[in-house]
């Protein structure tokens, strides 16, 4: 029934759009056939939290294209892991965009996303980014590379990798950066341990971490480049230091198996991956996944950018490093906890 209401109100005024959004979010619980007609329809967008401002720009631009005319959006943003769990638990979702691939795998397991979701020209990814350092304006602690994070007196903030799935990128960037410098796996693990010993705060999410850093906590915040650029655009008193070795962050996207309006959902996904869409992503601080767009923008150029695949891929990394209680990182936290409790 909310279906009816939004079919009749689409396009026209903003008020109507809001009404439709409300209606659509109610409606999508019920599987329904697509609305006939060239344009219109509703897209339930479920994404992780950082691209929210980017989507505001992207949706406006999409609605100005022929395919996007009259399409209304119901948007939901939150921690990547929570969002994936919510979709599995029934949150209506047509287009999903997560911080990291394992969250997409949760939907594959639940049969909500095709197992061939990454079989696309961009390997299922819609944006890239890198792990970078946010420091106080002017870089008073002279942070230049990973080694400077573990100098004495440097206080590091990185979100807790068990509560913020996306913070796993930070840990793997630290680990992989050591390997990239020719260190052994044991040495790399040891570096991660030193790094975690320098953390004065491990907030539950990336956005909490930024809040804390901006409220004066810590000397270095390990964060995604897009988030750092966003904070800089907002005029926050920070500097960005790109480490010489870092990881390529790859954010997956997919259309779910039975979207409420397949035409609209696919058109939106196509727009996000189009030249026009990728330009907007780039303006918002994300590294485009299309080479021809990437070449038009100037992003920081670290000496080496490695991928999660080079570290064995997410499935392996997840179980080795991030299994609660037994994974490498859990073991490290435990040894740090025990050593400080004893000392």
């Amino acid at each position: 029934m909310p279906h009816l209401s939004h079919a009749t109100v689409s396009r026209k005024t903003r008020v109507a759009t809001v009404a439709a959004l409300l209606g659509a979010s109610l409606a999508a619980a019920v599987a329904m056939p697509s609305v006939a007609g060239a344009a219109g329809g509703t897209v339930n967008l479920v994404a992780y939290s950082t691209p929210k401002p980017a989507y505001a720009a992207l949706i406006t631009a999409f609605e100005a294209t022929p395919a996007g005319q009259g399409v209304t959006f119901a948007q939901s943003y939150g921690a990547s892991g929570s969002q994936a769990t919510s979709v599995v638990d029934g949150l209506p979702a047509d287009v999903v965009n997560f911080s990291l691939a394992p969250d997409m795998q949760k939907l594959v397991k639940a049969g909500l996303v095709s197992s061939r979701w990454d079989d696309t020209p961009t390997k299922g990814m819609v944006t890239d980014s890198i792990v970078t350092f946010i420091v106080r304006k002017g870089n008073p602690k002279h942070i230049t590379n990973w080694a400077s994070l573990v100098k004495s007196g440097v206080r590091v903030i990185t979100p807790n990798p068990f509560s913020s799935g996306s913070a796993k990128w930070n840990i793997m960037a630290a680990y992989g950066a050591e390997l990239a410098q020719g260190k052994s796996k044991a040495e790399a693990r040891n570096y991660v341990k030193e790094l975690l010993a320098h953390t004065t705060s491990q907030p539950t999410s990336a956005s909490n971490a930024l809040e804390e850093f901006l409220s004066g906590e810590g000397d270095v915040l390990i964060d995604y480049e897009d988030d750092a650029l966003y904070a800089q655009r907002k005029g926050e008193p920070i500097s960005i230091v790109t480490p010489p070795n870092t990881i390529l962050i790859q954010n997956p996207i997919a259309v779910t198996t039975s979207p409420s309006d397949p035409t609209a959902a696919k058109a939106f996904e196509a727009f996000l991956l189009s030249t026009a869409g990728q330009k907007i992503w780039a303006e918002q601080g994300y590294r485009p996944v299309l080479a021809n767009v990437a070449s038009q923008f100037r992003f920081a150029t670290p000496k080496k950018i490695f991928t999660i695949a080079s570290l064995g891929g997410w499935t392996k990394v997840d179980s080795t490093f991030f299994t609660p209680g037994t994974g490498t990182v859990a073991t490290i936290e435990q040894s740090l906890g025990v050593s400080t409790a004893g000392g």
Partner: protein
Amino acid sequence: MVDLATRPSGPVPAPAVPGPRSGRSVRLLGRVGGPGLVVTYLSLLVVLPVAALLSHALSGGLGAFWHAVSQPEAVAALKLTLWCSLAVAAFNAVAGLVIAWVLVRDDFRGKGVVNAVIDLPFALPTVVAGLTLLTLYGPDSPFHVDVANTPVGILLALAFVTLPFSVRSVQPVLAELDRETEEAAASLGATPAAVLRRVILPGLAPAMLAGAGLAFARALGEFGSVVLISGNIPFKTEVASSWIYSLSQSDDLSGAAAISVVLVATALVVLVGIGFLRRRFDISEAA
């Protein structure tokens, strides 16, 4: 929408209560319907969710349950949460009494405002409270008080969110307290300290205990206000609710449920224990 209005509905019960006999029906509600309604409502709202939680926690068997609650990080988080909650409940029981005392016994300008301010911690979204506390008592503190990333920060956040319980449970009882008894005791030569200990506190103890119990239970599960200021460092400043959140994010939902069950059980034991204590107070007072 339209459907709803036109759909032939089931038999509509006739208006149950004819006007003149409403008095009797209220009594009937009290005797039969009341408990039934209460049980149904409580079941839907409290018992069912807790039962679901329990079954979730035990979905992997007792072994998995024990494994989840005995993990070192879980134990550390539970210990920290327990002692912080106890400390805050005890501290706020005293602070709440003092505040309630001032509000009931003293008259001053702006008393209405102060009275209203007490409830603000309930109105403020806890994450906002956490952020505000961090700004005021973090590294950029205008008062140069930096308790961020320490257990003191946790205590501060918990004291903030539980204050209304401590004040509001004592305040009405204090207002009802018979002042003639105090005056009689004083005129018979009791010192103010003796009056407080022998006359006032025994009358207030049940209410203070009740407030402390609520504060304790609330503190056990508090998340939003604590996570920002605590620093959330495993084994040092990570509280149980935050560990639960980590588990749920790491796809270990039964582990998360297991820790939650420990929290709920702890709260239950303490609340029931306080119930016993209160009854003892009531009896000794009556005797």
